[in-house]
């Protein structure tokens, strides 16, 4: 009796495995997908190869002036030479160690949040970030205490100013937004009405009209002789504007909490503020982390509008040097530099919010 032995399976045809299979499934599955792939591939190559060539290969990165630049490549020398101005604005050069210390403290409280450190350490660093850091930053950057020479806010600028505006704006907008959201869900009709009008007003009006009012009209509404610092006013404008958005985001979270949670909290005999603080808000805020992150990112980007009222933030600082006759045609380099800075921060924040969302996911709800 002849024994039949199955011969080993043939490997699948080359188009069914490995790279080829992946290509076939993901790029050339149908005729129109193939066409799309080829068209987009062609477009990518024709656009990005010259761009990379211009931005990196032909580019000049260091030098002493415009003469060092290559007309066919990007002139990053411009950014390198003016970096001090882009980062600190008109902040006196010999005192720039002070914002540097603040930057270091900022990095110390933010960077560990991304590292696998014990939760306790991260928590305390985060608490320092929202309490100690602003105070330390104010004392160091503004000066006037502990023998530090005072630097008026009109000399603050560049990336430093952008970060200050964004950081303080975010720290202030979140609590105000939460209060407004609670007010909008209040059972007291008057409080609710005031909050609704406030939120809808700030959400409907363009930020530049608010900044215009804050920067040049405010003294008209106040008693004679009462003035605030211009930077502070811009900050208040941005904060109130974004807190209205924050309020709507938080409200969404409050509405998503099942009624039973409110009732159970009430049944425990907790007062209003403890109900909110211990039961409702922790759940509501967790739900709306993506929304809060989006608001934070848009606040960060909106800080550029202060250039319209004459503050030299990062974009304003770069834009004001573009017309310098010593540098010819460095507009693209300048704008790309600003775009890159903002992109890094905004992209970083959106990644972090994704992470946080996953971390806090406890499996409740759907």
């Amino acid at each position, binding site marked *: 009796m002849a024994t039949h032995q199955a011969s080993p399976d043939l490997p699948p045809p080359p188009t069914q495995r490995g790279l080829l299979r992946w290509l076939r499934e993901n790029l050339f599955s149908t005729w129109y997908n193939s066409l*799309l792939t080829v068209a987009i591939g062609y477009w990518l190559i024709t656009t990005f190869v010259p761009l990379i060539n211009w931005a990196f290969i032909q580019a000049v990165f260091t030098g002493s002036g415009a003469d060092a630049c290559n007309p066919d490549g990007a002139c990053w020398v411009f950014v390198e030479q003016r970096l001090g101005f882009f980062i600190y604005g008109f902040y006196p050069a010999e005192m720039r160690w002070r914002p540097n210390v603040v930057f270091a403290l900022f990095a110390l409280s933010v960077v560990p949040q991304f590292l696998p450190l014990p939760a306790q350490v991260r928590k305390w660093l985060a608490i320092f970030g929202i309490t100690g850091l602003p105070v330390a930053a104010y004392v160091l950057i503004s000066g006037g205490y502990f023998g530090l020479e005072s630097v008026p806010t009109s000399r603050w600028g560049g990336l430093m100013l952008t970060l200050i505006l964004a950081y303080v704006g975010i720290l202030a907008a979140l609590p105000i937004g939460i209060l407004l959201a609670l007010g909008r869900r209040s059972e007291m009709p008057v409080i609710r009405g005031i909050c609704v009008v406030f939120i809808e007003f700030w959400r409907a009006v*363009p*930020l530049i009209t608010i900044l215009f009012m804050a920067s040049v009209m405010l003294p008209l*509404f106040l008693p004679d002789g009462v003035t605030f610092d211009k930077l502070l006013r811009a900050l208040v404008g941005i904060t109130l504007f974004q807190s209205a958005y924050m309020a709507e985001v938080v409200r969404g979270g409050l509405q998503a909490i099942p009624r039973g949670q409110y009732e159970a909290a009430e049944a425990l005999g907790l007062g209003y503020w403890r109900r909110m603080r211990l039961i409702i808000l922790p759940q509501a805020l967790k739900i709306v982390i993506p929304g809060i992150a989006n608001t934070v990112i848009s606040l960060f*980007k909106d800080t550029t509008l202060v250039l*319209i009222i004459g503050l030299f933030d990062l974009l304003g600082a770069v834009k004001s040097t573009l017309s310098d006759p010593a540098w010819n045609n460095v507009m693209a380099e300048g704008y790309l530099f600003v775009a890159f800075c903002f992109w890094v921060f905004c992209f970083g924040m959106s990644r972090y919010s994704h992470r946080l969302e996953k971390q806090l996911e406890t499996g409740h709800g759907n």
Partner: protein
Amino acid sequence: MTTDPRPLRPGRPKPWNDPRVRSVVFQILAIAGVAWIGYSLFQNTVNNMESRGITTGFGFLNETAGFGIIMSLIPYDETMSYGRTFLVGLANTLLVSGLGILLATIVGFIVGIARLSSNWLVAKVALGYIEIFRNIPLLLQIFFWYFAVLGALPGPRQAVNVGDIAFMSNRGIVLPKPIFEPGAWVMGAGLLVALAITVVLAVWARRRQAATGRIFPVLPISLVLIPGLPLLGYLLMGGPVSWDIPALGGFNFRGGITAIPELGALLLALTLYTASFIAEIVRSGIVSVSSGQTEAALALGLPARRVLRLVVIPQALRVIIPPLTSQYLNLTKNSSLAVAIGYPDLVNVFMGTTLNQTGQAVEIVAITMAVYLTISLAISLLMNLYNRAVALKER
């Protein structure tokens, strides 16, 4: 028996512990506080303006403006009033917002769907676009496009020429302008009739489909009717339209309709920026429709494109509409950044030049804010009505 004769009635709480009393007191305090702040701000403003001799009132709206505006949808020249400049600015704001909303919606939907494409390259390019454009400030994008677009386009004398009737240069895109002569009304009437027929047909077709299940091809018929009837009118009346064709004269093109580059750059920036947000909204909306719905529809034998149109998109819209509304509001407000590149929108013309010539900041800023408030409320209202139409109807 040792029962307590007193009934178990809760003691009346002290007034300061009674939630109702407290609530009333808070509300009275809040009203008083807001009224007080409002009154003192008003009083301060009036006092300050009086002591500094600033003219007040709205009389300036009738005074002659005396400055030119580059682009106007309504007839305007320097001899007209400041009130007119307000209307010109408003029309330009509405134009750029309307076009921006339309284009951003189209681009956003395409990119959002492309993000879910089975083609890896398409999905990644869509993702790259979204991550780049939504993480860069809009103002920067406006500057970039304005100067990039301007820098790339040739001067009017070397303009890109499309068949000797349309031209593109750094002064904008110039197109032939139709001039309607007597008799052109027939074409307008034709268009109206065609639109009316389409609407009636659509309603009838839907009823018939509900009753009998048969589908009537409304779209192809309307595609023939809507251009067809006006064309018929054109032929019947012997061509009552002539064209004002732009021609190079002196510095620039004369005649025709010009779309200025400021409009182009602003529109490009607003569209690309807002579309990156809309794309994400569309994607999450589509993802939120459970795959069981698609499978069920396919099981019923519907072809793939009908599945998308009849099953997935209508359900996704419920999730999409509310955040889409806020993107529309954002786009409208962001159009005020026009001031940075000189597009004559409301903020640029009215809150810029007019405010400066008249010096009446309080009135003008109040009017401007009121206009944006009205536009925002109108968009919210329209979108809420639409939302109600697409919302889940619980039966």
